[in-house]
């Protein structure tokens, strides 16, 4: 579904964050990316929906090249790509000026995906699924972190995406709220959604991931099934990392 070839990203201050990442995310997979901070995992995820512009390499999404040499920036409609790739942020980024309902329905309506009635019905159905139907007309400032993140997930799902990207979705939450967000993500994984998750939740990686990637210093150092990844780590760097976090 997403193919990444030799992805490099250099920021303006000449810091290399990604040093040639190649990976293939297949339909239905749940990829969990772990690694120390500054290893480039978030940047990797943000390159996939082009919130960051890769400086080198290619990205293919559903058989079409969306970044790299050979793509015409003007012709590749980034919006169409983003409409089909949901993203959940560490700090939720709910629209502060809109109610929960408007947060969820804004994009489906404005992109022409649904009309107003369809969008509202869809939103209510999704809110019910995460148990927050009664919050439909509340503003984000009245919600707890866990509620905000569940609604941010719903907001992305309302676009009927093919893939969901999660950028450290539980890192900004109070410990007692992590569970409710992970439950929604597990539920989503069970429904067959293709997911790429950057996280520090090793339990989630072990339980939900189909593949776990370890990134360090801009490279994918190791990649394996959760059982092998945690049970039989190969590289010294990963062993060291796991000994610290587990």
């Amino acid at each position, binding site marked *: 579904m997403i193919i990444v070839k030799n992805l490099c990203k250099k920021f303006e201050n000449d810091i290399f964050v990604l040093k040639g990442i190649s990976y293939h995310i297949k339909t239905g997979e749940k990829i969990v990316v772990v690694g120390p901070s500054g290893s480039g995992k978030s940047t990797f995820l943000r390159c996939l929906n082009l919130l960051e512009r890769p400086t080198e390499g290619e990205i293919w999404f559903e058989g079409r090249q969306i970044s790299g040499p050979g793509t015409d*920036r003007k012709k590749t409609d980034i919006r169409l790509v983003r409409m089909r790739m949901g993203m959940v942020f560490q*700090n939720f980024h709910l629209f502060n000026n809109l109610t929960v309902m408007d947060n969820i329905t804004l*994009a489906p309506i404005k*992109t022409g995906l649904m009309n107003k009635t369809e969008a509202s019905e869809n939103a209510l159905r999704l809110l019910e699924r995460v148990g927050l139907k009664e919050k439909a007309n509340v503003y984000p400032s*009245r919600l707890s972190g866990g509620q905000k993140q569940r609604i941010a997930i719903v907001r992305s799902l309302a676009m009927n995406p093919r893939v969901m990207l999660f950028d450290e979705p539980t890192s900004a939450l109070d410990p007692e709220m992590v569970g409710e967000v992970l439950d929604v993500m597990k539920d989503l994984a069970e429904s067959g959604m293709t997911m790429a998750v950057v996280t520090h939740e090793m339990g989630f990686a072990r339980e939900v991931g189909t593949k776990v990637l370890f990134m360090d210093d801009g490279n994918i150092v190791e990649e394996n099934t959760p059982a092998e990844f945690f049970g039989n780590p190969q590289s010294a760097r990963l062993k060291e990392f796991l000994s610290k976090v587990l």
Partner: protein
Amino acid sequence: MWDKFEAAFITADRWKLYFGGLGVTLQISFFAGILGLLIGTVLALMKLSVRWNGKKTVFTVIANIYIDIIRGTPSVLQLMIMYFAIMANNNNKVLIAVLSFGINSGAYVAEIIRAGILAVDKGQTEAGHSLGLTRGQTMVHVVIPQAVKNVLPPIGNEFIVLLKETAIVGYVGLSDLTRIANQIASRTYEAFTPLIISAMIYFIIIKILTILLGKLERRLRQSDNR
């Protein structure tokens, strides 16, 4: 004391002159304020436009030149240049003043609005983009509504400055509140009373404005706690 007040305000229906002058002042301020807001918004968006590779656009350069020139020269000079040179063939003085002050105010408003937009968390924009909204849609539905709250206090301040700045329109022969006071003084041979009367009218108008702005601001802030 009363005699002076009577001479400056009541004799020969002079109070009508103050209100006539106030009318001119308010008319210029109001329309110049609106024009400044329009120009400022456009300039701010021009300044914030960036190309996909993060480089400046030609719009940014134009906006920067505009702001540099307007902020770098006195508004009295701008007014006189407008009146004696650029629009020398036009005898609608109020229109000339409105244009001149509107163009001037736009440069300052631009920086206020730009700061207000930049103060909205970048994550809001990213979230909008990640959902497939265009830059324009994200601006209109998410960023600008939040920026309005940020810019209201400094915009109100700018409008108050503008209202007082119009006191220089006497330079091009318009009889605003300030010039009227001067004219009355030259007729009664007593400057203090008419000047103080004008000053008090300015003060009251601005006080009312401040109260209204405060109310508006409080109403907008309410959505923070709903």
